[in-house]
């Protein structure tokens, strides 16, 4: 059983609830009449309030209570969820969030201001003060020696799960207790309903407890019973009048267990007798377990080591003749690979958790800039490694910010261009093989190629007059310090430029691509690997060295024909009619020993570009546990990491993106020559 601190669970849960709340509030701006949305928002608030109070977040509970009270009017339909109201509600949500996340640095004045604003919209008569739960009934003035009780229960209480005998047991805990069961209400056997309670009781309790203590015993059934209580003064004889003067048929005395007594009384139904035996420890219904992210990371590391050890075993087994060891090695290989998949699966999180944040971003930006923007998302349930999702948030914020700030034109311009007034931003995630594609598409003006070019020229990045494709010019957007925005708006200047976006994405072994249609919009495509920790790789040999090419980048393998080999100086390959540039890794790595007779070409692709890599030998598939290179190798561009092979030696992982860029540069040089 895990023993997570409930307060931490609350924090985590609260942040999920905030997303739900925010989502519902934003949806309300589009569909103000949707009852379901109001209910969802209300429920989220309600839970935050209830749980907050329990885990010591008193300010949160008090503030949320006010918020909830106001929102209750919306739920009841008395107040319309106008855009203005939603705006205030969103800032109230932000305030609660900071109360939870940074309780020290959150100023309650802000909260009061938000509440005041909220009150204006909903005009409640209630003052902004948290209500106290009324409790503590008045104490008894006289301390009696005991109590006389007369109990009559509603006949259905057994069905409602109340066992009167338990209540009698509770009374016994208060002091010596003498109970008389009154059976006059019990019908004849033919008319007896076993699920109904017909018994009444007269009880004498010797205890100096308060009346409220006795009330507490019956607190759940107070409405379903008549309880007559009279103090017992000093001794039983002093108050001689019994409350109900009936002769007892059965007596329940102090020392006897209630259940034996129950068995003797045929009138008493026993719906619960068998329940204890029929117990099953069935844990269905537990659908999810929360695990700390570090533990998952640790698990992934261990699995990585296991995969390496397994590779060594497989290699040893393959070298020997022992068939049984080979079988074990195969079995372990199979297990390790499914363990790897399971572990990676456990780290996968739907990307929708990040998407939710952007709706707010778009909402706020579109208000700030006065550009009405519709935000559409798709593929929220596409799963990605948790760590990647986290590092993906900032780049996406930047891309969406750019799309609204620079992409979407202002209303006047749009009208002049004959476009609909409302801009549109689409955020879509899809699976593509071992990769996930995330695209941000806007229907704005598209990239202004001429302006980018002018800027690049002014920065001396391009010689003026050089002939360049639009695509190449657009790549300058990823250049550090490159901005075509004429004035710095409040939205820019956050220290994240497109170059940082590109670097972040490439650090995740992903790629970023821009495509644009003038007047119609821009589309940014991020291609990301499914996971960071273990990839499928293609093990190759160049000279003596062994290298890994990420399998996700490999399109096909072909043989380097003598004809291709002969065309020296023109490193192009004819692949079914397409010219594909190729790189000789031997030349690139400075391999000196003689090359193999039949060299192979691996056709790799990133985005729309294909490049062939000439290698000596293709060894085969390899489950690659990625180890990052040390800081000393930070400048190495051709390799993205390393891995340990089965025999303990290291192999470098090729950075296909960089190699493609290199090949392109080379082919351009050749074209220019």
């Amino acid at each position, binding site marked *: 059983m895990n023993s997570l601190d409930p307060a931490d669970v609350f924090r985590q849960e609260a942040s999920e609830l905030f997303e739900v709340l925010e989502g519902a509030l934003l949806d309300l701006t589009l569909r103000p009449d949707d009852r379901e949305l109001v209910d969802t928002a209300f429920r989220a608030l309600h839970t935050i309030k209830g749980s907050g109070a329990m885990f010591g977040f008193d300010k949160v*509970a008090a503030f949320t209570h006010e918020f909830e009270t106001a929102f209750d009017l919306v739920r009841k339909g008395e107040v319309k969820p106008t855009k203005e109201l939603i705006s205030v509600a969103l800032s109230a949500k932000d305030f609660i969030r900071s109360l939870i996340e940074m309780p020290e640095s959150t100023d309650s004045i802000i909260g009061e201001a938000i509440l005041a604003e909220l009150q204006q919209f909903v005009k409640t008569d209630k003052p902004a003060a948290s209500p106290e739960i009324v409790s503590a009934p008045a104490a008894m003035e006289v301390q009696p020696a005991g109590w006389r009780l007369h109990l009559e229960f509603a006949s259905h209480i057994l069905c409602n799960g109340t066992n009167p005998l338990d209540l009698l047991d509770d009374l016994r805990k208060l002091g010596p207790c003498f109970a008389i069961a009154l059976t006059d209400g019990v019908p004849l056997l033919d008319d007896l309903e076993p699920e109904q309670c017909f018994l009444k009781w007269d009880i004498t309790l010797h205890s100096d407890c308060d009346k409220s203590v006795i009330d507490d015993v019956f607190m759940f059934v107070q409405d379903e019973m008549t309880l007559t209580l009279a103090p017992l003064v000093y001794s039983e004889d002093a108050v001689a009048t019994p409350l109900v003067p009936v002769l007892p048929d059965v007596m329940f005395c102090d020392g006897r267990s209630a259940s034996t007594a129950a068995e003797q009384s045929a009138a008493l139904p026993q719906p619960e007798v068998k329940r204890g035996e029929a117990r099953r420890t069935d844990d269905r219904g537990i659908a999810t377990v929360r695990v700390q992210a570090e533990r998952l990371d640790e698990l992934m590391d261990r699995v990585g080591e296991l995969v390496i050890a397994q590779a060594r075993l497989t290699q040893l087994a393959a070298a020997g003749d022992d068939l049984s060891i080979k079988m074990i090695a195969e079995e372990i290989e199979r297990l390790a690979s499914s363990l790897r998949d399971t572990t990676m699966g456990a780290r996968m999180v739907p990307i929708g958790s990040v998407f939710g944040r952007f709706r707010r971003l778009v909402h706020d930006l579109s208000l700030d800039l006065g550009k009405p923007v519709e935000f559409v998302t798709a593929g929220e349930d596409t799963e990605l490694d948790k760590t990647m999702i986290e590092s993906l948030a900032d780049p996406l914020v930047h891309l969406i910010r750019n799309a609204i700030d620079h992409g979407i034109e202002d209303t006047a311009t749009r009208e002049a261009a004959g476009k609909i007034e409302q801009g549109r931003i689409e955020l879509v995630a899809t699976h593509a093989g071992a990769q996930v594609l995330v695209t941000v598409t806007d229907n704005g003006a598209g990239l202004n190629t001429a302006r980018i070019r002018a800027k690049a020229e002014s920065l001396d990045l391009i010689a003026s007059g050089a002939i360049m494709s639009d695509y190449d010019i657009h790549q300058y957007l990823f250049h550090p310090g490159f901005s075509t925005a004429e004035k710095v708006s409040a939205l820019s200047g956050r220290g994240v430029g497109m170059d940082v976006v590109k670097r972040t994405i490439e650090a995740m072994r992903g790629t970023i691509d821009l495509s644009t249609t003038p007047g119609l919009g821009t589309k940014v495509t991020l291609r990301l690997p499914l996971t960071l920790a273990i990839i499928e790789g293609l093990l190759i040999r160049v000279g003596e060295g062994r290298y890994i090419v990420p399998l996700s980048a490999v399109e096909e393998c072909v043989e380097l024909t003598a004809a291709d080999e002969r065309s020296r100086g023109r490193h192009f390959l004819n692949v079914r009619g397409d010219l594909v540039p190729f790189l000789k890794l031997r030349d690139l790595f400075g391999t000196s020993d003689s090359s193999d007779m039949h060299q192979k070409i691996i056709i790799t692709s990133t985005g729309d570009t294909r490049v062939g890599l000439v290698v000596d030998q293709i060894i085969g598939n390899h489950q690659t546990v990625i180890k990052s290179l040390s800081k000393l190798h930070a400048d190495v561009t051709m390799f993205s990491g390393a891995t340990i092979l089965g025999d303990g030696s290291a192999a470098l992982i090729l950075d296909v993106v960089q190699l493609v860029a290199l090949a392109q540069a080379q082919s351009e040089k050749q074209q220019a020559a």
Partner: protein
Amino acid sequence: MATILTVDDSPSIRQMIKVVLGPAGHNVLEAGDGAQGLETAKSAKPDLVITDLNMPVMNGLELIKALRKQPSLLGLPIVFLTTESNDATKQEAKAAGATGWITKPFKPEQLLAVVSKLVRA
């Protein structure tokens, strides 16, 4: 040891209940909404159900009514959690067949007190 089913859409409440009742020797089962709760109750036959009222899919009132219709769960004590101290909610839940209630926010002792009231060792 008793088997106690907690039905709440809030994991932190469920966790809280688990943290309090687990060490007290109870086997705590969890369900995230009424529909799940009903299924778990049917299969696990708990000794006590602690349910929230405000839940998605199937709310607490519906769950209580549904549980009361189960012949195999006759006399099962059902406690509901409520933040409102107002009586209307309580009456409604009681009428649906609830045995008792716990007012949120509650302290661990209060929870234990209610459980020991309704569950006998």
